[in-house]
């Protein structure tokens, strides 16, 4: 993915990306202080915000193959299970029940399969959101601090899961996180942001 000459102004904040190349199939980290524009950047890259200027070359990826996980995931007004299979539903794929159960089991949500999604705890929400993004095998996954409310074990588990995905069929990851030490271990490249700009690394 190559981003050139991108500009996006919201209120007083201005995001400017002169030239950024995200190598496909690798895990990229983005770090930077609060309010430096990480979320705005990801949203623009995901096509949620329209840039004022500039262009993003997805190198053949369609919008169906891109996903983003929010800091506070949106959960549909229904059960955990329904939330999880929503991406499959809209793609008219019949979910493999055994596989779904296995995934839930792995992160410890199997017992809450039928629970009302909005009553989950924040960590559980993030887990659900993570699974929901993985379930339809996108090619570009953006993670906006989705892992920061997890307990240490879960965090490790998710790092493992990310690496597992990479082993099978590499996808591009853009992971925003504040904890450099964690992200360092799995990232191929780390991009630093400050005040709406990427620093040369």
């Amino acid at each position, binding site marked *: 993915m190559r981003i050139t000459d991108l500009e996006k102004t919201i209120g007083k904040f201005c995001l400017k990306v002169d030239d950024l190349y995200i190598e496909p199939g690798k895990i990229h980290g983005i770090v930077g202080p609060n309010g430096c524009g990480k979320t705005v950047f990801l949203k623009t890259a995901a096509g949620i915000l329209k840039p004022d200027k500039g262009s993003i070359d997805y190198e053949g990826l369609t919008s169906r193959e891109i996903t983003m996980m929010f800091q506070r995931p949106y959960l549909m007004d229904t059960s955990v299970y329904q939330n999880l299979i929503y991406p499959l539903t*809209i793609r008219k794929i019949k979910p493999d029940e055994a596989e779904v159960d296995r995934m839930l089991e792995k992160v410890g949500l199997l017992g809450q399969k039928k629970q009302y999604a909005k*009553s989950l705890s924040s960590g559980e929400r993030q887990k659900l959101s993570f699974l929901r993004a993985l379930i339809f095998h996108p090619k570009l996954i953006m993670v906006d601090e989705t892992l920061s409310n997890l307990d240490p074990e879960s965090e490790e588990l998710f790092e493992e899961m990310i690496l597992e995905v990479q082993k099978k069929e590499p996808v591009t990851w853009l992971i925003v996180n504040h904890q450099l030490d964690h992200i360092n271990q799995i990232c191929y490249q780390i991009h630093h942001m400050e005040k709406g700009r990427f620093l040369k690394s």
Partner: protein
Amino acid sequence: MIEWLKSVISDPGILSAIEVTFTMAVCSTAISSVLGIMLGLLLEKFQFPGKRIIVRMNRTLMGVPPVVVGLVVYLLIMRRGPLGPLSLLFTIKGMVIAQTLIITPIICGMIYSYARKAAPGIRVFAVTMGASRAQSVLLTIREMRREIYFCMVTGFGRSISEVGAVMLVGGNIKGRTRTMTTTISLLKSQGIFTEGVALGILLLVMAFILQWVCDMLQKEEEQDENY
């Protein structure tokens, strides 16, 4: 009381009025809901110059006097009017048109007001899931289903309670276009007040039961959120 109810239930005039009322109300609520939901969501989604004016006009139209709508529709569908050849005057169809004009702005305005809060988040989520436009709209509707249901109940209530437009466009023809409310209106004009009130209560009870049934059909429990 029970005597009265029996006599009412066996009166073909009243039976037909009940039928007309609910036929008209269901049809006009259905049409207005489709239009109102569509327009409300469109209005929320798109930004364009003059949008505020449109929103304000919509809000103003929520208070359009039914008798004015009745007059306008009459002038449209009367024999000499532009839609005269369709022969809609003094028919339930004509009444449904008038009602739709009254109720659509109400549903549209309410949907817009709900969607302003809920829809942006839903839309963003839909994009991240790779939903198509249609799927995104569908999801918005699904997520707002409780609000939409409430809007429809409001529209339905407005529809069964209306007199002004229905009387003029429908002609209050006994056995054909006479509704419960126009019957009550007629009783009122004849000074027969208590029976009018009784019929009104009967109408409300029926509306209540209908709503109960609809609530049951939804079978949805409300669940607590974790804040």
